[in-house]
């Protein structure tokens, strides 16, 4: 067993003590701070989900009362979306890898990067305060006038928490955009960039263009509650549907904030695990931008039954269909990349394949919901719940887990147990389908979302869903153990444990503080994923 001595200059060993972490300007340490914080919120959001699934085992709604149930699904949504999914890949893997993939020592604004983490933490603490102060019961969508006039829960506090966290997202996006434009290493042209960078760049565009709109929207709701300004209150001449337009102008693109970085991760993993360049590189790159742009033009498909005109609904329906094109381009190109690749059946491959299956189902059911006529039947049903969980959990989190495993040896300098990772990927895939596929059926039969009780004949499918959720929870809990174990007892990782291409694999694991040796400028003279047939690895 050939052990490589741990790199003495690694960013982890550069300084010790709490202050060296809390005051760090190193993008890699900030990524680790984010990783710890979002993991806590993932667990918290998971607890709320578990409470929801427990309630739904019986049709009577006898475990939690209706008011508590309203709070549980609201907090599940708020925590998972704003405090886990939106920052997940960009703030952890993106923060860690973007400067390395761009061949630079750090992001353009290291202090602003640290500030973004503090804003995240402050926003998260304010929202936790809202939870302690009795929770929020409006649903994560905060629809007016219920949220602005009627609800007696801590809506204002939660709104401020989301407002503050929004700035963390904006600052991360700003940093990525400037770094990609201005800090690329000499020779690293746009079309030599790894597709992970393209995906994060497209995500950043959505972050900076969408997030300010949700910021002003929640601020208007806050002002309505705090100062009695009647922006969305029909009793005072306001228009509650205007809130929905403003809200979905951010919150639909936010779906792409969650899934686009995941698509970037999958592009890296597919190329690495198949030892082949990504098929149709420029199509995959531009499809990220196309998704980012189209994402801003489809918000009305959340409002087919919200008094929107038929013609507006028609236009939004058609544009929604167009989103399927760049998404399909990606899916087909990943498949074509795997075709005749020398696929290495290590654990990242399992996460990738899981992603592709779940994302395909999530994407295709999106077409059902985007069809204005069918939507009238399916709207606000469990079909919608199942659809967006297939995208966000089956897609985004599967990709996040895959990426976390793929780059774990780079980030921590330790090798984890590959067999347990495979087991975890399989558990998640099976548990996920058991949880959410029955919800398509329930939704199609008419079970509405956000109810804590339901007719007896739907119990079997609901029990199946809750049983699946416990398998899913096991699949997510397992990595927490073996990844933590690897931190202390794992074998030391070599620079390139998977034997793949990419700038991040040319530097030691874990990387030194300034990524590449100090006072040296990286120069890149070839495209990404330049796997030459002569250098292919022959397994076995």
């Amino acid at each position, binding site marked *: 067993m050939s052990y490589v001595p741990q790199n003495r200059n690694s960013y982890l060993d550069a300084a010790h003590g709490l202050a060296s972490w809390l005051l760090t300007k190193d993008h890699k340490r900030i990524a680790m701070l984010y990783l710890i914080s979002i993991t806590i919120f993932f667990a918290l959001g998971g607890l709320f989900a578990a409470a929801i699934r427990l309630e739904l085992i019986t049709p009577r709604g006898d475990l939690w009362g209706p008011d508590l149930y309203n709070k549980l699904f609201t907090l599940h949504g708020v925590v998972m979306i704003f405090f886990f999914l939106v920052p997940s890949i960009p703030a952890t893997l993106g923060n860690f890898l973007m400067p390395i993939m761009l061949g630079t020592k750090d992001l353009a*604004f290291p202090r602003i990067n640290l500030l973004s983490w503090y804003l995240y933490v402050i926003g998260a603490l304010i929202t936790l305060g809202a939870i302690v102060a009795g929770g929020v019961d409006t649903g994560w969508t905060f629809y007016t006038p219920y949220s602005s006039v009627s609800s007696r829960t801590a809506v204002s506090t939660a709104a401020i928490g989301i407002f503050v966290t929004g700035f963390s997202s904006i600052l991360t996006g700003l940093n990525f955009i400037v770094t990609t434009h201005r800090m690329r290493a000499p020779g690293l042209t746009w079309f030599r960039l790894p597709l992970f960078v393209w995906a994060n760049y497209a995500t950043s565009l959505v972050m900076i263009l969408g997030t300010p709109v949700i910021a002003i929207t929640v601020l208007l709701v806050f002002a309505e509650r705090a100062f009695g300004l009647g922006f969305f209150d029909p009793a005072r001449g306001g228009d509650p549907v205007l809130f929905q337009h403003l809200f979905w102008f951010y919150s639909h693109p936010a779906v792409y904030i969650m899934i686009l970085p995941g698509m970037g991760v999958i592009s890296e993993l597919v190329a690495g695990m198949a030892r082949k360049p990504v098929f149709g590189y420029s199509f995959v790159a531009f499809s990220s931008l196309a998704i980012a742009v189209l994402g801003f033009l489809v918000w009305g498909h959340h409002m087919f039954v919200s008094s929107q005109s038929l013609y507006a609904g028609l236009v939004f329906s058609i544009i929604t269909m167009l989103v399927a094109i760049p998404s399909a381009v990606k899916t087909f190109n990943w498949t074509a990349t795997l075709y005749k690749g020398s696929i290495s059946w290590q654990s990242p491959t399992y996460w990738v394949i899981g992603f592709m299956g779940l994302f395909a189902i999530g994407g295709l059911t999106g077409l059902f919901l985007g069809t204005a006529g069918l939507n009238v039947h399916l709207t606000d049903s469990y079909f919608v719940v199942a659809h967006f969980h297939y995208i966000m959990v089956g897609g985004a989190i599967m990709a996040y887990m895959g990426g976390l495993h793929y780059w774990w040896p780079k980030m921590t300098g330790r*090798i984890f147990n590959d067999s347990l990772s495979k087991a975890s990927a399989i558990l998640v895939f099976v548990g996920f389908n058991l949880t959410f596929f029955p919800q398509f059926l329930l939704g199609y039969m008419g079970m509405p979302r956000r109810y804590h009780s339901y007719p007896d004949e739907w119990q079997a499918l609901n029990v199946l869903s809750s049983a699946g959720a416990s398998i899913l929870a096991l699949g997510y809990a397992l990595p927490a153990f073996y990844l933590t174990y690897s931190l202390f007892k794992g074998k030391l990782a070599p620079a390139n444990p998977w034997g793949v291409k990419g700038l991040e694999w040319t530097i030691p694991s874990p990387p030194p503080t300034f990524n590449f040796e100090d006072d040296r400028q*990286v120069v890149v003279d070839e495209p990404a994923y330049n796997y030459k047939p002569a250098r292919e690895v022959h397994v076995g």
Partner: protein
Amino acid sequence: MANVTESIGARQALAPEGAASAAGAHTLHGTAAGHGHHNPNLQHHFYSMEQQLEASTLGMWVFLVTEILFFGGMFLVYLVYRMLYPEAWVLGSNHLDVAMGAINTVVLLCSSLTMVLAVRAAQVGSRQGQVINLVLTIVFGLTFLVVKYFEYAEKFEHHLVPGPNFDMTLPQAAQQQLFFSIYFMMTGIHAIHMIIGIGLMLVILWMAWRGRFSPDYYGPLEVSGLYWHFVDVVWIFLFPLLYLLGAHYGAH
């Protein structure tokens, strides 16, 4: 993990130079452009002053894009209700003091001029020019806020502030109250931006006083100036939309 890949990885780690060039990247000692002289203001992760300035300017422009969308949400709310209640909007804008609004417009335009002159002074290396123009910019900013204070105070006196004290005897009172909700929201958030801008200018003034800026290094001054101009431009939109459009055709 398969033994094959592990040993390959190990070989690369033991020979980082070889691994790097095999992966298509190599490193150069020292650097290329612009690294000849080490300006103390050059942060470690940039390789030239030009790159540093370009990055900070682009960063501020991107931030201003987010600000445009932030205010854009309020402009949308304004537009929707203006279309719904055109008469109430005319009535509402007739309660605003056009003279005070016009004075504030002139004050802000002057402040933008002195802001540009401060950046220019840094580019030609005049510390005195920077200090004088920054002080003037701050004075203009404060003047704007003082005028705004008197405007707000007048609205309180005339019961035009939305809430329980709003004068409900006015024609179309509910809709006019909505107009004033938007008026206070837009001008209030603009005023908060002015206060942040003045705070920023105080820091920049302190740096200029200490002689931190030179023709080689004036990035913080330039990007703060961009922010200041943006806040100015927002007012250039707010003034006609709130004070001028449709005013003095109805109520008085």
